[in-house]
């Protein structure tokens, strides 16, 4: 025994008591503290979540030594979470990948090679696959953490160069259902409003989001709004799990996983029954739709459809603490408040019916007219820093081209080909594999060469063991470009070391349509290079190996440009000036020069520099605020829903039935399993796990068990518990608390230890519309396997 608990507490108490002595710092020290002993500060955006916090990076002697928030930024007002204030520490970490590494067989040891050799090998393997197996035997799998310039150039070379739409990225796993929801409800992707609505809202409907941990700096704004206006502002938190977000809630609606679709329809029922809807708003701006054919139906038909969703019936479906009276209460709060803002994340998106769930939240806003006015919004929080800007807007998914264009529309393909100066017909008309289909194709041996950039699907895919088998195939050549070893580099043939944030230049577009520039401030370690350089050099080699000058044409405008600023600037200019012109994400005004002048970037649409220098569009579709609401106006009404997906330029209220999750508990697997993010870690923890403050704060994943379930199963805090599904198992320490609803367990997903990697257990069912997997719900069984055991944190190293 080291020390006893009693001794430990006694000593800790004595030490803490001493900490109250001498707390005044001399003024001189305070000045020094403010300066934080740096040579210079460099403006940029946080590398981690989708909030888009602006930061200043402190540099001393060419090294990153500090971070602080930017007070005049409209996203974070200077505030940062622990990840945002500490991520500079990984930049000089000894585990950084510094040289290209290669092995012909995945069983061979790694060998350091030169960039020339690495690029030749990557080009040769992709060219060989195309020649032998066709264009669709190659694929790119990217990231919502890649810069927009990176995603754009990757997809350009893949589509127009290698003539495949096998372009995907991890945003498929997190916000594809929000894309589907926005397009089908509002006719246009991405939120209508902005964070600025938070300070004007008087009712928050937070559903399927633990924003206190996943978006802490945005949560701070909601918390502050609530605490400063305790009686005036209501907060509703709807979630099967009580989380840190619930601390500010007036009412926590806790239901069985997957039943929230019934809850949302029942809220609509109350709104209709009690005539809480905005008749004028509906008459002016909305239609009712049903089915795959998007058939228009009447208000009366919608009302009849909702008869199956009385609060009493919904309460029976939802269980937990849901009562008919609670449903009535929240529907009234939602409809009657002066301004209601809904916020959601993965609890809604990562679902078999994620698009429907998105539609049903937006239904409530359309019905009540809680849109396009200060404080009212149907607001999806995005998980990654550039899922919106790079992937949704830049053409980073298999079915979309840059500027919110659909691959399947010939006219839109032609626009892109013309902008790129490549022959008509060069972009294939058929969308490529979506993420789950792509890795299924890897499993089946259909993909012969795949490039995975800045993400770790070996850990982040649901049911990951199944897909790791494919990635381990010797006949699938795998390039992985990243900054650290991960579970995915373990399965690669070629590892390319990339520059990290602030070691290169580029734009991130955050949740609220805001694009922000981060310029290079320090050199990347070793031979790590920016992706834009890597792709350009790879494409030039590909062109030769395939004897195809069009591939060279894809990067011709960028040849010879230095990679730290001129190259990404040229790519950004091409994308914004040629491909966002006239599109709903018009970014022509947001040039690098303009972005560099703004403390917090620009919100699109921003068609001109003059408009961009004012910050861009705070609320879409409102004449006088959104310039496109004027330029695209079809009548004299103050709101103009000009989005590309709705020919009638109206908002659509959808008749969506309740449908449960793909897999529900049964006698063999009697529990629901859900997963989520913890505040101290980012995704697969390959970065945050290397910051000791963050690793110590949450060194390993655990399973949360409801006290009633724990009592029945004899599970005590710290006991090692088996969590097993039909796909795989974990053994994790237990935390017993009234978080998950009875009958449900919850596991954080960052841990890369094989015993605690929860995506070995999750299910790979996906939404038929958005193709986003249902990470949030599957069936499992649990049992105690032993008492507490000492555990070690785990990170993949080379």
């Amino acid at each position, binding site marked *: 025994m080291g020390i006893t608990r009693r001794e430990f507490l006694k000593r800790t108490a004595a*030490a803490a008591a001493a900490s109250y002595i*001498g707390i005044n710092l001399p003024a001189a020290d*305070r000045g020094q503290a*403010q300066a934080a002993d740096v040579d210079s500060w460099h403006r940029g955006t946080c590398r981690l979540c989708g909030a888009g916090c602006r930061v200043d990076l402190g540099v001393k002697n060419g090294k990153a030594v500090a971070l602080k*928030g930017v007070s005049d930024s409209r996203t974070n007002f200077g505030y*940062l979470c622990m990840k945002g204030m500490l991520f500079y520490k990984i930049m000089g970490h000894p585990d950084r990948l510094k040289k290209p590494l290669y092995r012909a067989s995945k069983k061979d040891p790694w060998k350091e090679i030169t960039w020339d050799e690495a690029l030749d090998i990557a080009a040769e393997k992709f060219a060989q696959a195309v020649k032998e197996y066709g264009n669709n035997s190659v694929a790119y799998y990217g990231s919502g953490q890649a810069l927009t310039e990176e995603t754009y150039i990757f997809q350009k070379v893949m589509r127009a160069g290698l003539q495949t739409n096998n372009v995907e990225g991890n945003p498929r796993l997190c916000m594809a259902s929000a894309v589907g929801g926005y397009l089908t409800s509002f006719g246009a992707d991405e939120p209508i409003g902005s964070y600025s609505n938070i300070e004007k809202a008087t009712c928050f409907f937070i559903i399927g989001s633990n924003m206190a941990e996943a978006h802490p700096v945005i949560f701070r704004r909601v918390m502050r709004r609530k605490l400063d206006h305790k009686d005036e502002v209501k907060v509703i938190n709807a979630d099967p799990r009580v989380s840190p977000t619930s601390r500010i809630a007036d009412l926590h609606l806790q239901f069985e996983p997957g039943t929230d679709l019934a809850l949302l329809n029942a809220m609509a029922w109350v709104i209709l029954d009690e005539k809480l809807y905005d008749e004028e708003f509906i008459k002016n701006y909305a239609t009712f739709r049903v089915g795959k054919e998007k058939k228009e139906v009447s208000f009366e038909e919608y009302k009849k459809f909702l008869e199956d969703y009385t609060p009493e019936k919904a309460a029976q479906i939802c269980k937990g603490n849901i009562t008919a009276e609670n449903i009535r209460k929240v529907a009234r709060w939602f409809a009657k408040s002066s301004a209601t803002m809904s916020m959601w994340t993965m609890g809604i998106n990562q679902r078999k019916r994620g698009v429907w769930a998105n539609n049903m939240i937006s239904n409530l806003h359309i019905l009540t007219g809680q849109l396009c006015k200060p404080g009212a919004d149907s607001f999806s929080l995005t998980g990654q820093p550039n899922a919106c800007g790079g992937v949704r807007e830049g053409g980073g998914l298999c079915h979309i081209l840059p500027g919110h264009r659909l691959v399947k529309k010939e006219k839109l393909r032609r626009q892109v080909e013309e902008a790129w100066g490549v022959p008509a017909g060069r972009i294939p008309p058929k969308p490529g594999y979506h993420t789950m289909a792509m890795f299924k194709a890897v499993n089946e041996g259909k993909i012969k060469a795949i490039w995975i950039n800045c993400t770790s699907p070996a850990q982040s895919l649901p049911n990951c063991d199944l897909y790791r088998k494919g990635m381990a195939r010797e006949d699938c050549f795998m390039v992985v470009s990243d900054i650290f070893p991960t579970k995915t580099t373990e399965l690669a043939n070629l590892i390319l070391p990339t520059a990290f944030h602030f070691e290169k230049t580029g734009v991130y577009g955050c949740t609220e349509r805001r694009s922000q520039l981060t310029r290079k401030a320090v050199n990347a370690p070793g031979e790590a290079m920016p992706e834009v350089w890597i792709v350009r050099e790879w494409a030039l080699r590909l062109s030769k190996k395939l004897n195809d000058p069009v591939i060279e044409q894809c990067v011709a405008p960028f040849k010879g440009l230095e990679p730290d600023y001129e190259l990404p600037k040229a790519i950004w200019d091409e994308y914004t000036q040629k491909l966002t012109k006239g599109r709903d994400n018009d970014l022509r005004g947001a040039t690098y020069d303009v972005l560099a002048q703004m403390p917090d970037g620009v919100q699109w649409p921003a068609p001109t520099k003059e408009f961009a220098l004012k910050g861009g569009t705070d609320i879409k579709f409102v004449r006088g605020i959104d310039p496109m609401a004027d330029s695209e106006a079809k009548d004299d009404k103050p709101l103009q829903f000009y989005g590309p997906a709705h020919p009638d330029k109206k908002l659509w209220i959808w008749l969506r039935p309740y449908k449960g999750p793909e897999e529900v508990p049964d006698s063999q697997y009697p529990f629901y399993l859900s997963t989520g993010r913890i505040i101290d870690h980012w995704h697969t923890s390959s970065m945050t796990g290397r910051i000791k403050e963050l690793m110590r704060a949450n060194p390993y994943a655990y399973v949360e068990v409801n006290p009633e379930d724990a009592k029945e199963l004899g599970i005590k805090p710290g006991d090692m518990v088996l969590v097993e599904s039909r796909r795989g198992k974990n053994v994790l320490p237990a935390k017993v608390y009234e978080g998950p609803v009875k009958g449900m367990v919850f596991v954080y997903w960052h841990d890369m230890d094989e015993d605690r990697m929860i995506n070995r257990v999750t299910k790979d069912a996906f939404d038929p519309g958005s193709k986003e997997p249902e990470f949030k719900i599957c069936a499992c069984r649990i049992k105690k396997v032993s008492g507490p055991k000492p555990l070690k944190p785990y990170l993949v190293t080379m």
Partner: protein
Amino acid sequence: MKKISKALLMSGIAAAMIYGCTGSSSGPAKQAAVKPSGHPVLTEQEMLTPCQECHQAATPEVYEEWYNSRHGIDNVKCFQCHGTYEELKRVPDQFACAVCHSAEFQHTEEGKSCWDCHPAHKFVVHK
């Protein structure tokens, strides 16, 4: 508003104590009781215990003040101001405040610390 994490933290403390105190049969804990920072010496295993899990029991008043403060509700954790074990500062550098409160920091009166006006751990607007 529901107070949700006490049970979680208590269970965490129990787990941390069990891991911490059984995870090592020797180590620095036996050799020195207190570091220069004033913190008890911890084993490698004990260092994997989030600060608040022990301090909920060791310094309950401080824990309660923090837990009920805006910092506590927004999950601003001990290490963000005080650092982690090796670099632990009983009295944080004021730069720890300036990381988030840069603009406010400029307004502090000469000779005063942030916590002269905003009491430590409670962080109400003004004393």
